[in-house]
């Protein structure tokens, strides 16, 4: 693949990320927001491929698209009246929020451009067996804590969402 082709595909994926995130932010219909979020998650997986983190791209598609997005769609369907054709998604007037977010974005841009990053060019960031070795070696304690946290969170969710006898 030629260099130009590579760049064109990268910028197309980046535009897809930001454009679909913009649809999530601006859409008046919450189902449209949810499907734009699906597109955002897929294109973030594309960004991971450009960072040569293929394992993360696959994990992103499986967990975010297959798990979290389905959870969000369930939440949308369970908390709206299904007969409403137009599932509205109200938002507060953005007179304060929009300038605030603009200021934060400008500050981040200034930081990114100003800082003299000591980059070493693209380096090897590890195949799947390196990640496995890291998870079972250096990060073993964090991995176990994450497992316990997942168990606790799922038990808590089941407890919170149970049917009450009354």
């Amino acid at each position: 693949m030629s260099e130009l082709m590579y760049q064109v595909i990268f910028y197309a994926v980046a535009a897809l990320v930001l454009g679909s995130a913009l649809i999530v932010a601006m859409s008046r219909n919450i189902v449209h927001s949810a499907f734009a979020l699906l597109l955002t998650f897929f294109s973030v997986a594309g960004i991971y491929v450009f960072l040569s983190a293929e394992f993360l791209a696959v994990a992103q598609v499986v967990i975010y698209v297959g798990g979290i997005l389905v959870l969000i769609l369930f939440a949308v369907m369970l908390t709206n009246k299904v007969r409403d054709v137009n599932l509205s998604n109200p938002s507060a007037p953005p007179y304060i929020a929009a300038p605030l977010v603009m200021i934060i974005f400008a500050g981040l841009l200034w930081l990114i451009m100003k800082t003299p990053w000591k980059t070493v060019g693209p380096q090897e960031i590890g195949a799947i067996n390196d990640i496995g070795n890291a998870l079972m070696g250096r990060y073993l304690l964090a991995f176990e804590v994450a497992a316990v946290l997942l168990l606790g969170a799922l038990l808590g969710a089941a407890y919170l969402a149970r049917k009450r006898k009354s």
Partner: protein
Amino acid sequence: MISLQTFLIISAALFCLGLFIVLTRKNAVAILMGIELILNAASIALVSFSRFITPYGTGGIGGVVAPGAPATGGQTFVIFVIIIAVCEAAVALAIILNIYQNFRTVDTEQTKELKG
């Protein structure tokens, strides 16, 4: 090649869009979507730092990777971020369903029982 700054700008823009959603939306499920966008932005920043900035020679305890060894730190952290996102989505869905049972709405401006 695509530089580190490009990836960081994408990450910053995604973070700001997520923050905008969290600040303006009234529907609790939409706020949850904004939080997911913020977590994705953080993940992109972590992986791009891991790819472009060398982890060895930084000193410190356990922060040193042998020269030539692949840097797995960023990807491992992103795996933990995904685990946190799953936990947060599950618990948030349970809380939102409870709010819906009690108030018959998920509009964050109409659920003001604690407001005196």
